[in-house]
């Protein structure tokens, strides 16, 4: 016996460029399915078992004559065409539901019940503007079809299909769950057909199936969840759990979703000095976990905090850093947490360009409820210019005020209203005075030392869980070049090391640097040389502090001393900025 469930979704319509005032072309939500369909093919032929939403049946021929139809009315399928937008147009494009309704049950059964050779693989079929995606299985599987043009959404849907398929396959082997449900569905369909033949009133058999058939209800739930939250959680046969999330619905910037590949790239670039910020309360999150979830996840949720970085979290929760990275990535993927830099008083925050600062937004209301006596826009106005948390500190205020401030900042971070700014440094030596224009400018340091591995192990360097890398973080700095230089004095060894480090510079650059007054101090020069490879604009101050075990004041002083060859700017960390975009 072979089954195939599919769902249909509107395909990406061509951008029709209209000349009306409302020239924004409204397409259906491209990440939601239009419908879910379950189809079987076997000895009894091809049959459509279930579809949701139910098809609006065409009126019976007998009742059609009752309608007065103007000779100029558009000839449409089924019932009269309602003008969705209210404006009068010559020809409204068919809505998604009508497109789906256009396919009768019989034809769906035929086209979707596939041959055995393509079972076990992704199935994709596109008819005009509707796309079907599914995973036909030899023991039936309800694929969910989405007609969205974006391949990543399609493959996510296919993923869901496949998961449901596997669950159903399992239950079928165990207790013939699928066969039983299918029999039930077919029986109800036959019943309704006979009834319809007898009294002529059209009814959707699927409406009757829904209350009686658990599988039908599960499919309906999957559909509803996909259309709304993008998170699906089913219990097939009240036993096997199938959970799935559509990252496109969960992670969005403005009106567009973040492609999963971008999400994954960012997750791989998380460093141990980052922190995990939960988006819901600990209690709420723990309540959502399934009964058989890993204890490591529970420990992590209980131990994590906005002020603790991942390395500390690993120690406190007594878990390996690799595990922390994996669980953190998992929570972020499911939209339950974001990655931030741990909260501390030197952090500088600014309003996010995507922040919703509207007076009447639901966020403003929630804020007033959470923090009575304060209003969100006033608070947000304080972050119009970059401001560090330390600047809020008022010695005359009670400590409780400060604690509340922290809470407010956390609240705003959770809702992606704030971004954190970091300082980045780039080495750029003033060009040579002589031979102007004749010599090409030296390619900046960044271009020359590009590709060097970073000294902090990132999630990427862990590779897959089966990698044999043994990452111990006893010493943060693992880069070869920033060798431990012996303190004190002008020893020949130190001098040699400094020279080696400066060797990657061009002659002109070296000259300029050595002519800086601060370079006369060997200690300063040594520090400068040691940190040289960070000065390409990709490593922020905090990262250098973490890697090199240095204090902020030390670094700032060094930057100041060598300011004639350094250019400093501040902006958000591109690695985690993807998480700082607002959720819809």
């Amino acid at each position, binding site marked *: 016996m072979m089954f195939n469930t599919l769902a249909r979704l509107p395909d990406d319509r061509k951008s029709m460029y209209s000349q009306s*005032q409302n*020239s924004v072309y409204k397409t259906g939500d491209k990440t939601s399915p239009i419908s879910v369909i379950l189809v079987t093919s076997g000895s009894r032929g091809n049959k459509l078992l279930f579809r949701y939403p139910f098809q609006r049946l065409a009126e019976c021929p007998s009742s059609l004559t009752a309608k007065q139809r103007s000779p100029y009315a558009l000839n449409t399928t089924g019932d009269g065409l309602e003008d969705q937008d209210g404006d009068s147009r010559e020809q409204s494009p068919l809505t998604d539901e009508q497109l789906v309704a256009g396919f009768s049950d019989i034809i769906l059964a*035929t086209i979707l019940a596939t041959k055995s050779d393509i079972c076990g693989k992704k199935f*994709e079929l596109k008819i005009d503007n509707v796309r079907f995606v599914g995973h036909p299985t030899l023991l039936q599987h309800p694929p969910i079809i989405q007609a969205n043009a974006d391949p990543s959404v399609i493959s996510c849907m296919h993923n869901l299909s496949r998961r449901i398929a596997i669950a159903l396959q399992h239950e079928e082997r165990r207790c013939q769950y699928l066969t039983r449900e299918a029999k039930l569905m077919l029986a109800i369909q036959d019943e309704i057909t006979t009834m319809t033949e007898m009294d002529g009133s059209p009814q959707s058999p699927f409406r009757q199936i829904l209350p009686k058939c658990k599988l039908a209800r599960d499919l309906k739930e999957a559909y509803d969840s996909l259309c709304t939250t993008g998170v699906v959680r089913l219990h097939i046969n009240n036993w096997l759990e199938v959970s799935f999330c559509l990252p496109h619905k969960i992670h969005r910037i403005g009106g567009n979703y973040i492609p999963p590949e971008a999400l994954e790239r960012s997750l791989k670039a998380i460093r141990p000095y980052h922190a995990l910020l939960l988006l819901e309360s600990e209690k709420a999150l723990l309540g959502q976990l399934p009964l058989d979830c890993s204890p490591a996840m529970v420990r992590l949720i209980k131990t994590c905090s906005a002020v603790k970085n991942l390395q500390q979290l690993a120690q406190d929760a007594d878990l390996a850093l690799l595990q922390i990275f994996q669980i953190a990535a998992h929570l972020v993927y499911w939209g339950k947490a974001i990655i931030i830099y741990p909260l501390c008083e030197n952090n500088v925050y600014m309003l996010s*360009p995507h922040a919703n600062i509207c*007076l009447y937004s639901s966020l403003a209301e929630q804020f007033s409820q959470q923090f009575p006596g304060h209003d969100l826009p006033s608070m947000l106005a304080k972050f119009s210019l970059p401001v560090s948390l330390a600047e809020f500190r008022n010695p005359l205020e009670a400590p409780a005020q400060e604690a509340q401030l922290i809470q407010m900042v956390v609240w705003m971070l959770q809702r992606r209203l704030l971004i954190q700014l970091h300082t980045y440094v780039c080495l750029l*030596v003033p060009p040579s005075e002589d031979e102007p224009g004749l010599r090409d400018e030296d390619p900046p340091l*960044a*271009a020359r030392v590009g590709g060097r591995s970073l000294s902090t192990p990132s999630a990427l360097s862990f590779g897959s869980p089966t990698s044999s890398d043994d990452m111990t973080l006893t010493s943060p700095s693992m880069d070869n070049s920033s060798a431990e230089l012996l303190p004190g004095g002008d020893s020949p060894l130190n001098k040699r090391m400094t020279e080696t480090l400066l060797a990657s510079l061009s002659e002109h650059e070296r000259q300029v640097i050595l002519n800086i007054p601060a370079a006369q101090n060997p200690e300063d020069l040594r520090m400068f040389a040691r940190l040289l490879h960070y000065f*390409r604009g990709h490593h922020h101050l905090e990262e250098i502090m973490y890697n090199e075990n240095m204090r902020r004041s030390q670094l700032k002083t060094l930057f100041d001393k060598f300011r004639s060859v350094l250019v400093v700017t501040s902006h958000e960390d591109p690695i985690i900025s993807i998480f700082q975009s607002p959720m819809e």
Partner: protein
Amino acid sequence: MGMTTRIECIFFSEFHPTLGPKITYQVPEEYISRELFDTVQVYIITKPELQNKLITVTAMGKKLIGCPVCIEHKKYSRNALLFNLGLVCDAQTNTCALEPIVKKLSGYLTTLELESGFISNEESKQKLLPILSTLLEELNATGACTLPIDESNTIHLKLIQLRKDPPIVQEYDVPVFTQCKDHFIKSQWDLTTQQILPYIDGFRHIQKISAEADVELNLVRIAVQNLLYYGVVTLVSIFQYSNVYCTTPKVQSLIDDKSVQDECLNYVTKQGQKRASLRDVFQLYCGLSPGTTVRDLCSRYSQQLQRVDERRLIQFGLMKSLIRRLQKYPVKVIRDERSRLPRLYTGCHSYDEICCKTGISYQELDERLENDPNIVVCWK
């Protein structure tokens, strides 16, 4: 998705009165295996409900796009002629651009058959094979194909790549050409676009263009939106010396990417001056930060600006997203019960928008709001 759509095979399939569905011609030969055809034939020569629909089926690593046609007439054996001219691509290919071509081809063949029995006549049907060959070759090579079929019929086909929907154009947006304006061939565009063209200089905003070109505002918006769609222009914000900008992480691309560097230095150098140095330009961009106006920048970095045109500097930075503009949003937070609900001071409308809509200047708006204790201003 910038990959060109490569067609692997073009086939002509029909329902043979005795043999059933088969592939009559395919170029290159033997591309579609027996197995593949068996799997998908139900989607190639289809039941009546699926006829005349664009059907794309993915199977065995390939994507087949076709449009099944059925012509009913007594003269045909079985009273109907069923055929389908389709394209085959790799399963990963985005085939949206091919769909209009398939539809057009099916239309052409239908017409040819109805007019002169092109397909049902065995002799003329053989002309299909060289036609398929030419189609495959030319569509893959140039994306276009012009084929004379016989003395009176010619087929014209072109692959059109779909683009993303363009954003809405506001009256306070400023369009700027992405390429040199001289490369723009006026005659290819509609009259409205031609009329507003001289006013697109990267500094005039939509409202101003509409006033000076004497074209209705919404028409200007639509024309510019059209230019946006084709990537001919991009939008930046109005330039004023009181504007505030800040760097984005992408500013580092000026250091990392030689091509961006070159483009930038050429763009921002003052006319007639020696090319500006990378260091000066980078310092200027990094000198932009919240709280710093362009005017402040000019006074602080006057040495660096000797060879740099600050307006073009800002323009380039915005176009390439090296910097972004910080807009001011007034919000009326305290109001007494009797006063009306704030209409514009809600945090949803920037100074740019308010000034554009009400006609008052920035300074005026600033003066009004600065002294109002009930209003806070957010920058983002």
